[in-house]
């Protein structure tokens, strides 16, 4: 090794070391993949078909218990699927019909019906789920991944056919 050339023994040591590291990496990745969450249709984490959008009048907030979200049809038009989980420390946020707000019982955070923060300590608006209105006019919500946002914007809103986004 002193002349800068890799000896046969040195090469074989590196080779087996690399093979060992590779094996360890493979096993680690396989284990992590094995343990990764598995979404199931119709349960929380799956896709929900809530039927014809017309059955949800404007200005209504409908809890979907199994999906742990609220289907919000805004007064001024447009649908949102608002995740029930408070963005502060994860408590379940109930909807208060009287004030039209989501108020968290744990630390007093309050949100508007489109999820925007009215009262701290929540650091960001309520999360959303991906909502689509398909060709048959059915509301479809995918709960496999929540959408986090820093601010509530109109691009979060999905409009039904005939509703304007102006």
């Amino acid at each position, binding site marked *: 090794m002193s002349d800068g050339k890799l000896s046969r023994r040195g090469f074989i040591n590196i080779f087996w070391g690399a093979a060992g590291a590779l094996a360890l990496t493979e096993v680690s990745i396989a284990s992590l993949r094995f343990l990764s969450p598995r979404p199931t249709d119709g349960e929380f984490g799956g896709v929900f078909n809530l039927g014809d959008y017309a059955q949800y009048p404007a200005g209504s907030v409908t809890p979907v*218990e199994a999906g742990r979200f609220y289907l919000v049809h805004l007064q001024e038009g447009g649908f949102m699927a608002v995740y029930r989980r408070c963005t502060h*420390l994860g408590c379940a946020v109930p909807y208060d019909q009287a004030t039209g707000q989501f108020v968290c*019982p*744990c*630390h007093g955070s309050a949100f508007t019906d489109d999820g925007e923060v009215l009262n701290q*300590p929540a650091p960001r608006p309520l999360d959303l789920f991906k909502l689509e209105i398909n060709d048959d006019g059915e509301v479809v919500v995918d709960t496999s991944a929540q959408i986090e946002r820093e601010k509530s914007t109109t691009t979060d809103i999905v409009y039904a056919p005939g509703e304007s986004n102006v």
Partner: protein
Amino acid sequence: MTDMQPPVTNNTSIIGRVRRSIQRDPISSDNDRDRMRLVMNSLILHIHPSKVSRPALKFSYTFGLGGLLILLSFILAVTGILLIFVYTPSPDAAYESMISLRTEIYFGNLVRNLHHWSGNLMVVVGVLHMLRVFYTAGFTPPREFNWVMGMVLLLLVVAANFTGYLLPWDQLAYWAVTVGTSLLDYVPVIGPALTRLLLGGPEVGAATLTNFYGLHIALIPLAIFSIVTFHIWRVRKDKITVPRQLNQPAIKEKVTTVPHLVSIELVFALVWLAILFTWSAFVNAPLEEAANPAHSPNPAKAAWYFMGFQELLLHFHPVFGAIIIPGMALFAMLLLPYLDKDMDSVGVWFRSQRGRVLTGVSFLLGILGTAAFILLDEYILDFPGWLPFLPSYISNGWVPLAILLLFIIGFYELLKAIGSTTCEARQSVFTLLLASFVTLTFVGIFLRGEGMILLLPWS
């Protein structure tokens, strides 16, 4: 000691021969040579050396805390294995298991209570064990790495407690784990992915229960067992530190492990077994109504050993309260044994006479300072309001943290200025932070009411 074989006698009964084939050395003997051989030849006893330092046997030096942790692990293993046979880790059946432990299963309640209280006691005793080692400088070379292993073990004990907390699947369990894992969510970059992996989904559910069960009954106990083996082996190799007076050498006197140490251990274990059984016979582990993911109780609190962090979270931006400040504290603790020392205080309580006074003063200062900080922050301080042009992680994170660090550095420099050694000053800063954490935990547990409103004891 060249001959390790016990004397062979041929004219014994067959019962005597069977007994000797299992236990080769006589359990009790009248000479030290046989007593030492008994320890050396025994699988279990040889975790001890055959002779131990007499001063180190003094109860008020170690308080038997390490031994108590082993006893608690043993109780937890036995009761835990029993509980595995009657517990079903699914959201539909878990709470039913709790009810049947209370109503149907013989001694079910006692076994659950023993498991619950031993587990909680283990966190307390683990911290006390760490404090004992810290204040007698037991972490100094060559014992640095054993301190690091001890810290890892303490974290694993907390993890074991936390995963076990979910298993009853009552309201307490569900929301404490929801709030606790939400703290993890604030870890930069890997936090959300890690939380999702741990929960097996976006929130606490059936997959979380399975994950926590697996961690609680297999992975964490196995990790603790492996590291504890290493930890105890290191104590055996490096020997226990010997208590002494400052500026005096340790007394070298040694006595045989049997009976001097082993008899203390057995009596100590029996006394603690009696205490735990009595306590568990009369005090029930808490059980609230079945978990309801749609309804959070008010207030929703984390497990008691996390209340210090939850309290911190009320005063700092989440990334600081849950990650940066605890992370800095943990890093300092792991680094501690590798820092340069300017005094040899191994085996001396609180480093020195001045160290004792400073420890008392620092503890008091930590309590008062933290109480003052909480009151100030509640009624006067409002960095986000005063600095509205800054993002909240600066105004409610870096700014208050920088002020606190300046206070701590000022305190350290003041101690050095009045002539304290580096070791004494370091000990005082540690004590200050310890007192601060104890105070935060106390306020979080006892002085926070609905909506986490501060309840002042005098109002």
